[in-house]
C-alpha cells in the first residue's frame, strides 16, 4: 500500500492565534513548545491565557524535551475523504514533563500494528505551509 502515490496525509491546518502559535510553529527551530505557568510551574495544554490551576496570567510557552509515551491510540482504517492515506495512527502522547500532559498527534516511523500503549516516543515535525505539525516516532532504544 505504501507504493500508492495517489494518497497522502491530509492535514486540515489550525488557524493560528496568540495562544496556539508557539505550539504549531516551534518546530521551525526544532522545539516542541508547551505553555507553562510561571507561578505554579504547571504545563497547560491546550494553551490558554490564564492558568486554570492557580489563576496566574503569567503564562508562556517553553521548550520541552519532546519525549513522551503513547498513552492510548487508534489505528484509523476508514478513508474519510478521497486521497487520504490510511491506515494511520491517532494517539495521545503523555509528555514526560508532567502527569496527564497529553498531546494528540500521529505516530509515524513504524508500522501501525507495532504501536502500543506505553511505547516511548520522540517528537519530529512536518512542515505544511506556516505550520510545523508535531508528530511522534518510536524512540530508538539504547543497545
Amino acid at each position, binding site marked *: 500500500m505504501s507504493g500508492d502515490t495517489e494518497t497522502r*496525509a*491530509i*492535514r*486540515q*491546518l*489550525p*488557524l493560528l492565534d496568540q495562544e*496556539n502559535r508557539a505550539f*504549531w510553529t516551534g518546530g521551525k527551530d526544532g522545539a516542541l513548545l508547551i505553555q507553562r505557568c510561571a507561578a505554579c510551574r504547571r504545563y497547560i*495544554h*491546550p494553551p490558554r491565557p490564564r492558568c486554570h490551576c492557580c489563576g496566574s496570567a503569567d503564562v508562556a510557552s517553553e521548550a520541552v524535551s519532546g519525549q513522551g509515551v503513547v*498513552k*492510548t*491510540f*487508534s*489505528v*484509523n*482504517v*476508514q478513508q*474519510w*475523504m*478521497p486521497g*487520504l492515506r490510511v491506515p*494511520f495512527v*491517532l*494517539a*495521545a502522547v503523555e509528555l514526560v514533563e508532567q502527569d*496527564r*500532559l*497529553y498531546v*494528540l*498527534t*500521529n505516530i509515524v516511523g513504524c508500522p501501525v500494528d507495532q504501536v502500543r*500503549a506505553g511505547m516511548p516516543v520522540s517528537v519530529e515535525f512536518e512542515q505544511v505551509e506556516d*505550520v510545523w*505539525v508535531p508528530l511522534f516516532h518510536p524512540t530508538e532504544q539504547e543497545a
Partner: protein
Amino acid sequence: MLAEKLACISGAGQSDVGRPSDRSALALTIQACERALASAGLTPDDIDGLTTYPGPMHDAGGHSPVGATEVMLSLGLEPTWVGASTEGHAHMGAIIEAIMAVASGLCRHVLVFRTVAQATARARARHATVLGFDAARAMGGMSWLLPYQGYSAATLYGLYAQGYFDKYGATPEQLGAIAVNGRAMAALNPKAIFRDPITIEDYLCSRMISSPLRILDCDSHVDGSTALIISHRDTAPDLARAPILIEAMGMALAGFGFGDHSDGDFSALPAGKVAEMMWSRTDLTAKDIDVAQIYDGFSILTLLWMEAIGLCGPGEAASFVEGGTRIGLGGELPLNTSGGQLSAGRLHGFGHTYEACVQLWNEGGARQVEGARTCLVTNGGFGYGALLLRTD
C-alpha cells in the same frame, strides 16, 4: 423545591425516520412537533416556550438544519421565551433549559426539538458529515484534532475504547454486546433503521473503522426529528394523560472533545459530576431503575456512561453487558430498547429520551419492558446530561 420536580414531560413525538427521507428537514420537524402536541393533548396556542439543540447550523452536513425561529413561524407560535445553544450539556442541554424555564415560572409548556438531516447531506456529498469539512482552517477544540486527520469522532473515541481495553482488559466480544443488543431491540421497533439481527460473530467480522471500533460500533446518519413538551406539573389536569415526572437531573461540562483530555486517563468519561448531582436530588438508587436509555453514538460511550452514572463500578460495565442477558428485554436492566442510535439511527440523544417516554407510557409494543416505572436517560459525549424519569 428542585426545578425538575416542578416540571414534567407532557408529550413526545418522533417524525418518520429516513435514510434518507423524501421530506424536508423542516417538514420532519413539524411532523415531530405535531405528534408531540397530539400526544400531550395541547395545541400550538398552548406553547409559550421553544428551544432546540444546537440551533441552526446550515453548513454542517445536516447536523442541525432547522432552528427555533423556523419552527415558531411554521407552527404560528408566540413564545415568551426561545433558547438554543451549541454549548452546554449536549443533547440534554435544551431539555434542561426547558425544565428551568418552566420552573422559573416563565413558561407553562415548552416545545423542545432536535432535527438531523445527515442522510440527505451525505446523499448530496459523500463527505458532507466529515468533521471540519467546510472550514479552511480549524478553530477551537477541533484545531487540536483535525491537523492529525481526526476527521471522525470514531477516531477520537477509538482512543477511549483502546484506553478502556488496555486498563481493564475488556474485550471486543464484550464491547460488541452493545451492538448486538441494540439490533435485537431494533428488530422489535418498526421505526428502527437496521432491523436484521446480528450475532457477536457478525460483529467480530465487521470491518474496522478506527481500532478498536468497528462499523457496528458506530451509529448511522439519518433524517429525522424528535420533539418533547416540557410542562409545569400544575398543568397536569389539562393534559391528555398522566405526564412523565422528572425525578432528577444531572449535568456536567468537561474537557473531553475540546482538545483537553487532562482530566482523565482515557478510560472514563469526565461525567462524574452528572451522577453526583442527579443522585443527590432523589431518594431512588441505581437498583430502582427499570429500563435505561444510555447514549450510544459509539458503543464505547455506553460502557463509559454506565460507569460514569453509577450503574457499574469502574471497568465493570464490560462484564455486565457481556453475552447480553442482563441488558436484554428480560434482563435486570433492559438497555436502549429502541435499538439505540446504533440501530435506530442517529437522532442525537433525543431518540433516547423519546424512547424513555414510550416505555413509561407503556407504548413499546413488542419491545415494552413490562411494568416499567422508572427510566434513566443519559446523553452526550462532549457535554453531559442525565434525566431520571418515572411515572407517578
